[in-house]
């Protein structure tokens, strides 16, 4: 059983984040055991923590709306990776996250999460430098990371309702949007 309950002490930071995100996106559902709701996993706790921070740096919480962390984007990506049948795609993520760590050590002599806020920003800025025409492995990984962060965030409850304030997917009563063609 891959989804068998784990001992309580294995609850890591990512589990807490996933649990928080789950609570945020399903406020009307009765509380369920946190562990049973966890998606399939692929990343290690350290990799997950790194991904979670990267997604939040790409779409942070601001005065308008919560960001990617609150929207559970890393857990969504990890879930997709966990159930994927494409080992090459999974490996690309593992390698990509390792490349981010490597870049951080190269620039600052320490891992990404050990760096200061400014140092993290510097690493991500370097990753994003070739965004429109990525050439290096880390630039290519940034494209993939950004796409999955964007797609995970703007399909989340927070992204759709709080950030975009999307008005559709409702039965309109006749007060239809727009102007008549005259």
């Amino acid at each position, binding site marked *: 059983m891959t989804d068998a309950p784990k001992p309580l002490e294995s609850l890591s930071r990512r589990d807490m984040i996933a649990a928080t995100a789950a609570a945020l996106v399903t406020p009307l559902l009765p509380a369920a055991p946190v562990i049973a709701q966890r998606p399939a996993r692929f990343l290690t706790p350290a990799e997950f923590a790194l991904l979670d921070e990267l997604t939040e740096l790409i779409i942070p919480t*601001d005065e308008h709306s919560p960001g990617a962390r609150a929207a559970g984007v890393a857990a969504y990506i990890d879930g997709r990776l966990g159930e994927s*049948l494409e080992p090459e795609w999974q490996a690309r993520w593992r390698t990509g996250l390792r490349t981010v760590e490597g870049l951080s050590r190269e620039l600052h002599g320490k891992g990404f999460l050990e760096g200061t806020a400014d140092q993290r920003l510097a690493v*991500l800025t370097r990753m994003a430098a070739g*965004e*429109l025409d990525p050439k290096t492995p880390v630039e290519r990984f940034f494209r993939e990371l950004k796409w999955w962060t964007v797609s995970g965030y703007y399909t989340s409850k927070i992204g759709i309702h709080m950030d975009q304030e999307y*008005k559709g997917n409702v039965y309109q009563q006749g007060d239809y949007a727009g102007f008549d063609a005259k």
Partner: protein
Amino acid sequence: MDLSKTYDAVIVGSGAAGGMAAHVLTAHGMQVLLLEAGKRLPIEQELRSMEWPYDHPRRGDAPPGSHAVSFNEYTVRRPPYAKASAFRHVYSYVGGWGGSDYVKNILVDEKDHPYTGTRYAWVRARALGGKTNIWGRLALRLSDYDFKAKSHDGYGEDWPITYADLAPYYEKVDLYLGISGVKENLPHLPDSLFQRPTKLNAAEVRLRERLAGMGRVLTPYRAGVTTDGVKHNKYRTKCFGRGACGRRPGGCDIHAAFDSPTGLIYPAMDTGRLTLRTNSTAYEVLVDRNSGRARGVAFLDSETRQSYEANAKVVILAASTLESARLLLLSRSRQYPNGIGNSSGHVGHNFCEHVMGPGVTGLVKELVGKPHTLDDGRPGGFYVPRFRNLKDRQPGFIRGYGFEGSSGHSMFPAHTMETPGFGAQFKKTIRDYAGAFISMGAFGEVLPRYESHVDLDPVEQDRWGIPVLRFHYQFGDNERKMAEDMVTTAREMFEAAGIEVIGVDRDILTEGWSIHELGTARMGGDPKTSVLNQFQQSHDVRNLFVVDGSSHVSASCQNPTWTIMALAWRSCDYLADEFRKGNL
């Protein structure tokens, strides 16, 4: 169902054409058997039109192991595209759109349905209703600019009908199924009998006004959607502007958008005269050895592969342009060694469709930062009808093209990956700009050419052991010149309206991309150069009809579904009359 009896008519295929044939013939009192190769799906459960992305485990994506053929794969490889694929299921490019989980049982698995030859993005739906379950809903009429195109520019053949012949049937289709739009009084894009139109948003209103000054038109999407309701049909309801059709590859779980099952087939079944057999893969039109007439259809049960024969006095093919041609070619016999109805040698030839790809994306600066509004609660955005080669003569190409476009807010914000950067500024930019984009892409008429054709591959077979189609089809110089002009005019229209052009697509998409394949068994007055007469009746076999898009003589640049249904209605009126007189 009873296969020992002889039906008045057997129809192969349950899409727009087959559904219409079933409706019209049962209304005339005929006993009809309808064969569909795919399943009858619990379509509302498949579509789940109102499901939020976050309520789906993969945000609407198909399960692991599924793969959609990408533009790049279509470009660098040749069919069969799923050959030796490690994926469990391979779908056409439509299976790569957002919401692929909702159409995975409607689209065919390319692994089961290979084809060979030149590159072609062939989108097929094997399910009751076929592609009408997910069609794009743009419902346009053709005009004498299309039916008499040869008389206008000398190329190809005129249709054996005029607009006046078909207009009463367009009206019947409008009234029976419902269509939304605005009257524009254009001779080249005749108006329908419209129900309530959908609205335009600010960017579209501005473009409409500026285009009027250029002698061009922007009109609200003419949608094959009932916006006021069709009270005679208990299976459908009016459109409530949920926008579900635009967020997905298509489909409408309340059936405001036309689909063949609820619009045509279920009401026909309610007459008590329609027998439906799904999971029935037709592979041959059966011929009476003495008379040479069609006597029925041989088919396999798609699940058990057991072979059956259905007997009927009239055989009607409506399996789609390419599948109907395949079926004619497969039906070889002593009398018809080249395939039934093919004495002309034109079956599979004169294959045409729409060329697409070129288009523009623009930014309306005044809309940046405005509050988010409900812009996608409609079945489509706008349409810019053809304006080329009506009164003018373009030096580089003949025929014309129209644009489909959209703008404003949608559930998923526009232009995210084209917006560089990250962080708070990126997030704010996405939010501020989400409703300020407008885009449109062209659909152009592809010329029918004799050499553009399909035939049967001598080796390759599908999962049921039936020979598959081999494509011999490529865009030509007229299409390439037209595509260049599409880019030029799209830019000039946006610029005239003060819309900043921020993206230009110049590439032509792979042949087949428009999903508007037409013309493999064309109508005509001369049995030597055409397959069918003006009533879609075989010149060679008078109780054989082909009522789908294969009968079209030229592609026009207008989307074909409404014309397919109007023609099928007209032909089936004729068929029923001839049947009553004993002429079939």
